[in-house]
């Protein structure tokens, strides 16, 4: 089993006709993901990927035509929030937003709106999800992970790949890997994913990869302490990051004296979470 995505996933790619959209759609399809349609406003009626995938002008029409339940967004930042609203209003249950660079006030409005809706957003500024051997909705390379019983959740991209790869080298497989993204405000946080892993019978252990900025890791520690029965191993990036500087990710910043790696590691260790010194140590702590 897995969480959020599996063989039942019926995916629409929003922004399918862009370079990134078409490239990653091809990758997802090769991995076996059931891509049922694409949406690019103004290009409805076209077919892409050797005539296999129909393109629609709108999410509403695409969902009606295909019964999709999931969408992935590859559109530029200035149009991405509208794409999220469109997907939510078309009753998509899982929306994965890869786009980086969405203004934070836009994301606050998106969250304010989605909190009234049934749709879950993963991202933005994230690599998406991978349920090895079942489905890939995102840009995580499919070949760096094998099926198994470890759940992975991370705010990062290539750092997550490192971890998946290190697990694979140690013959450890993954149920689902969820990249929740590096923005200060996102659709799904650590606690959301931890609770899903806790409820997933095929996930036995969890790897949580955090980084500086905000206090999601601290809140996750509290949650782990009060609600989780499954072991969690963690790694926190940015122990050497200077305060006040945004480290690549919009959300990776130590400000007003909070959000340091030290505090996060301390909070996690306090509740019994093993925190690795570096990613390659993770397999040995599991």
């Amino acid at each position, binding site marked *: 089993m897995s969480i959020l995505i599996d063989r039942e996933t019926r995916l629409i790619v929003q922004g399918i006709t862009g370079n990134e959209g078409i*490239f*990653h759609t091809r990758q997802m399809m090769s991995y076996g993901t059931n891509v049922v349609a694409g949406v690019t406003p103004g290009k409805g009626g076209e077919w892409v990927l050797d005539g296999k995938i129909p393109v629609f002008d709108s999410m509403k029409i695409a969902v009606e035509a295909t019964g999709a339940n999931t969408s992935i967004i590859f559109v530029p*930042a*200035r149009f991405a929030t509208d794409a999220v609203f469109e997907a939510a209003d078309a009753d998509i249950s899982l929306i994965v937003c890869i786009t980086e*660079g*969405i*203004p*934070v*006030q*836009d994301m*606050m*409005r998106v*969250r*304010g*709106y989605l909190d009234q809706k049934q749709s879950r957003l993963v991202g933005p500024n994230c690599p998406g999800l991978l349920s090895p051997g079942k489905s890939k909705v995102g840009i*995580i*390379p499919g*070949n*760096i992970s094998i099926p198994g019983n470890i759940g992975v959740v*991370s*705010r*990062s*991209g*290539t*750092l*997550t*790949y*490192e971890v998946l*790869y290190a697990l694979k080298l140690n013959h450890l497989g993954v149920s689902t890997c969820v990249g929740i993204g*590096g923005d*200060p*405000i996102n659709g799904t946080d650590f606690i959301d994913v931890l609770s899903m892993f806790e409820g997933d019978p095929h996930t036995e252990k969890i790897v949580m*990869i955090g*980084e*500086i*900025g*905000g*206090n*999601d890791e601290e*809140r996750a520690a509290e949650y782990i302490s009060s609600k989780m029965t499954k072991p969690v191993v963690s790694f926190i*990036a*940015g*122990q*050497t*990051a*200077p305060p006040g*500087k*945004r*480290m*690549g*990710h*919009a*959300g*990776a910043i130590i400000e*007003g*004296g909070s959000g340091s790696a030290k505090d996060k590691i301390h909070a996690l260790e306090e509740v019994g979470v093993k925190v690795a*010194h*570096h*990613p*390659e140590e993770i397999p040995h702590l599991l």
Partner: protein
Amino acid sequence: MKIHEYQAKQIFSHYGIPIPKGRVASSADEAKQIAEELGGKVVIKAQVLVGGRGKAGGIRLAKHPNEARDLAAQILSMEIKGLPVRKILIDEAANIETEIYLGITNDRSARKPVMMSSAAGGVEIEEVARLTPEKIIKVHIDPLLGLRDYQARDVAAGIDLPREHWKSFIAIAHGLWQAYLDSDATLAEINPLVITSDERLLALDGKMLIDDNALFRHTDFAEMRDLDTEAPLETEARKYGLSYIKLEGDIGCLVNGAGLAMTTMDIIKLNHGEPANFLDIGGGASAEKVTAALKIILRDENVKAILLNVFGGITRCDEVAHGIVSALNEIKPNIPMVTRLVGTNAEEGREILASAQMMTAQTLVEAAQKAVMAAKGGIA
């Protein structure tokens, strides 16, 4: 992105927030002229984007125009925490009865804007939060609804503001909210908001941070960026779409991905080295980007070794290796480099690099150790 006090106050004023009469100057003579126009006592304030201007002598009171000129000359010749003072703000001096703090920022945990206020104005809010958190009144603002009148009133009541000032305070709170909203600010702060001896509310100092991700709809702000606040190499890197932050160490880092770049720094430190920078070259790793990144790292004179760490995911490692080799051929750096390629086609990539006589590593730890040794002259 930070903007200057005088810029923030101009924005506030546009939203009906009362600010002192004043103007910005970049010479002592200008300062004198403005002081004359303002007719008497003025405050001269260094416009630099760091805290602690006051303590550093960057804020001075002048009693007459000649004194204003002298103090202006003095301040304009200063450097505050490494930043040159290029502009000064000349404000009419106010008679202060009370100092209040009023600010709006993003509460990441609540995923909402939060308005904060405190009767202990004039002090940094983090300081108040640390020493007397009970003195800070907070209200969360619904991002779809905006600030409500009753919330502004609750804030006024919460800081025990005398009732005769509620109406002005509420208007200022609304102005600040609208300024924050329209400017895509991540912080909009009046500190202090003062009550003058003639019973007016006045925003004596203002601070705004603008969301870098929103600059596409605020081209006017993009032009306000003060390049003094970042290292020249950071400005340079931004042009190439590279995320670069200068640090104090001697091992240059070139990594794809922000999390992995931080991790690379951390592992260098863990192995008793010091990273010279954070550098994320982003997705892919074209020869052009690698070249630009290498050039920027090499312009940092502290750098004694370079660690290039790339996880080949969608991008194949052999392609990345070709990019590196072509970049090296162009730049021909004369300091040691350690390269780690992992992921798709990593073996092929490593072969290409080996034939180019690069030091290579397989694991993160190995790469870090080799780089640290190289920086200490262990490998030459």
